[in-house]
């Protein structure tokens, strides 16, 4: 009898890029419709990545490759940890370790735009990290455990105790997904002050690796959104899926309706929301428990 947790972790490793890629395809399609364009096929992200992988490698420095591969493997490993049902706080801490490799991959080139993007990526991490850690703690306060496996099997949905944490998490999701107004480190459009930021010097296979890792990361983050909803009842699963899709749609909507803000404003906004929403929620729940 194979453990369900192993299946779930393996499913993540195998399926996440497809789900992530498909979601990005949807993103492009919906964005296009919002802008009154037809937009590419929903499978376009896959075509792009396949094309990138088939190109010959061009790079500023060889070491970027191993840093990016490390970034990918660590992210996948962290995601697998999450879907395996292990410790949530540890998952978030490991995720920031993976992020360090991304930063290093940006810095190692010594290219001005890439380095600037990397610095901004660091600012983004600084903005969302407290909310991420607090989310982990919030689950612990509400459910008495850090273990994802136990949180899933609890009687009530965590969001009932943690509405403030949920708001904070969805807010920082925009930063984590590098979507406008918080696309500080990798702008969508290459004709701006930071060119393509962090990814400026990533070409061919390297860019494909970055892209695939982003898909893994998005699925992991949406998994956390689902974790807020899921409880021991089977009916919570479809609800969770709806909430996840809605959240994703919300991200697309925000992305399309806002212009990039300065990073000081991003930091201020993210931390304020974290403090006011998650912080106050934490105080209340600690006082009544």
């Amino acid at each position: 009898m194979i453990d369900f947790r192993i299946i779930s972790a393996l499913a993540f490793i195998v399926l996440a890029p497809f789900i992530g890629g498909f979601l990005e395809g949807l993103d492009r399609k919906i964005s296009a419709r919002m802008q009154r364009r037809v937009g590419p096929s929903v499978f376009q992200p896959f075509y792009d990545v396949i094309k990138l992988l088939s190109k010959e490698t061009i790079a500023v420095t060889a070491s970027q490759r191993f840093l990016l591969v490390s970034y990918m493997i660590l992210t996948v490993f962290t995601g697998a940890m999450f879907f395996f049902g292990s410790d949530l706080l540890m998952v978030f801490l490991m995720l920031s370790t993976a992020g360090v490799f991304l930063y290093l991959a940006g810095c190692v080139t010594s290219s001005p735009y890439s380095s600037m993007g990397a610095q901004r990526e660091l600012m983004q991490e600084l903005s969302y990290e407290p909310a991420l850690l607090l989310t982990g703690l919030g689950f612990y306060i509400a459910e008495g455990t850090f273990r994802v496996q136990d949180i899933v099997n609890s009687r009530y949905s965590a969001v009932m105790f943690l509405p403030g944490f949920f708001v904070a998490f969805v807010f920082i999701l925009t930063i984590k997904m590098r979507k406008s107004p918080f696309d500080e480190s990798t702008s969508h459009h290459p004709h701006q002050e930071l060119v393509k930021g962090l990814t400026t010097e990533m070409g061919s296979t390297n860019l494909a690796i970055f892209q695939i890792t982003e898909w893994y990361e998005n699925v992991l983050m949406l998994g956390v959104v689902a974790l807020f909803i899921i409880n021991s009842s089977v009916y919570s699963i479809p609800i969770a899926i709806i909430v996840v899709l809605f959240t994703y749609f919300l991200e697309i909507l925000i992305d399309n309706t806002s212009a990039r803000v300065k990073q000081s404003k991003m930091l201020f906004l993210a931390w304020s929301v974290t403090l006011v929403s998650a912080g106050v929620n934490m105080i209340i729940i600690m006082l009544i428990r």
Partner: protein
Amino acid sequence: MWWSVPFLIIFPMVVGVILFCIRIQKARKAIAYVATPAIIVAVIDLVVRFFAGGAVPVELYFDTETTDMFISVGEILLMLFVVIQCFRYKKYWISLLSIVPTGMILWLEYFGPKYNQQYHIRIDYLSILMCIIVGVVGGLITIYAMGYMDGYHHHHTEVPERRHYFFMVVFLFLGAMFGFVLSDSLMWVDFFWETTSVCSFMLIGYTKTEEAVNNSFRALWMNLLGGLALAIGILYFAINTGSVSFRMLTDFGVEGDALVALPIALMAFAALTKSAQLPFSTWLMGAMVAPTPSSALLHSATMVKAGIYVLFRLAPAMYGTATGTIVATVGGFTFLMTSIMAIAQTDAKKVLALSTVSNLGLMVACAGIGSPSTIWAGVFLMIFHSVSKALLFQDVGATENVLFSRDIEDMHGLIYKLPKLASFMFIGIVGMYLAPFGMLVSKWAALRASVDNKGILLVLFIVFGSAITSFYWTKWLGKLIGRTATNVKVKDITKANEMFSLTCNAVMMFLLCLLFPLLSRSFVDPLVESLFGNYYDAIPMKILYILIVCVLVVFAVPFITYFSTKDMKYDEKLAYMGGINMDNDNCFTDSYGEPKKVWLTNYYFAHKIGQRKLMLPCQLAAAAALVIMLCIVIGGLL
């Protein structure tokens, strides 16, 4: 049979005095090279005997009339030294901070109420751990200093040559630290406490420049103020309970005896001065003027750890008290604020100093909460911090000797210039903050414990503080690996003895990261048990297994990917500059057709969050918290 106990205390002091008298370089080095291994051997002997005896606490030296006489003489000598120095530099009022506590302690010893006889030395897990840290980390620093000080005086010809003095103080310091952590008698604790204060004063003032003198006196008065609080606490405790045993003090505290609330608060206050918490952080920052080995010594193995040691001992007694809450809050506040200040620093040594203060803050917070799991976390923080900071300080010192700069911006591409030193720096930094290594595990445990204890403020301090900590360490790491267009290797002039110490520290760091689950089971768990009297599974076995897997993955992945992509075939191109690149990645042609040099720097925000801007308000807030603490405790007595 416990020869190593008096040996560890007296031998370094004797060596120190001998080194002071010998003015021949070679002879001095020869003695130091024999003395340091001897100290380490004695530490090993102590550890082996302790475990051979079943790891039960050992109490020694019941009758110590002659030794007490010697200690009294020592106290008077210390006081005279401080008074003379204060008058020499016209800082008259500071001498009072030495005269008053010494007078109080001597009065208690000879004229005060009689207190119970007791064992003066007590060896348990915590003191064994401290001895290992002081002996091994401190010992390595003395070896490093042998080489470093030669180079230092070679470059800094303006500084008067007083190496005999420097090494005397270093060895005195080690002896005093051993005495401090092994004593159970508070009279002895007080003597060694004052000795370390004076030693750090002497080290900081080594260069005798105006800045050094000012900073050394700042360190002196802050630490002596702590000493005064300690002396009052001891006096109060002795008069009211007729005992001067440290263990009795904590035992009374655990039972909730109201009589010891004040001594505990005062001792905690003293510990905060010693471990440079806000509002007393400035003395440790000022200590930067001294040569690097003394910074390494103050930051890693000795001085600041003495404060943490006292707080760990007091922790069971502080659990759930007002003192504990405020100590934890001050610690958490220090952790957050000093890590913010660290972002703004470009000077590597200052970043290290602020990060020391900030990590100490986390340890203080752990001790203030005072539950077994936080002490578990705190002990791990202490172990990791000692090794990592010793490594980083020595490494920055060695790098400075080569590059003539310790600015982080000048370390761009250090991995190509000085591969060895840069990799050591990498190991040190990564061990400091990256998941899943030791420090992060401690943060995990500290967070969980503060949630369990409903420390809302503390949770926020730690969460925000640790995000900021990652920020400044990561940006430093990025600098080290930035590819330089001219990948020139600089000649590494680090001396063999410096390299030896660095390598040992790096290997220790590596092993600690790899083996900490083992260390937890075999040493730290029993340590916590011995402090609290009951066994507590601070970190569940399941987590430990996950951690082992994480550690292996984080170690293995970069290695494997590095070696598998090393020979990758690729087309090299120049970085995009927004203009035409000129010959290499250093220049480009701008829109006026002029050559422009590329200059990359990290974010610092010095004008917004610099020390100059934040330090004073933070000090005021922390000072207010401490005043409140003392008022609550004193008010509780009335």
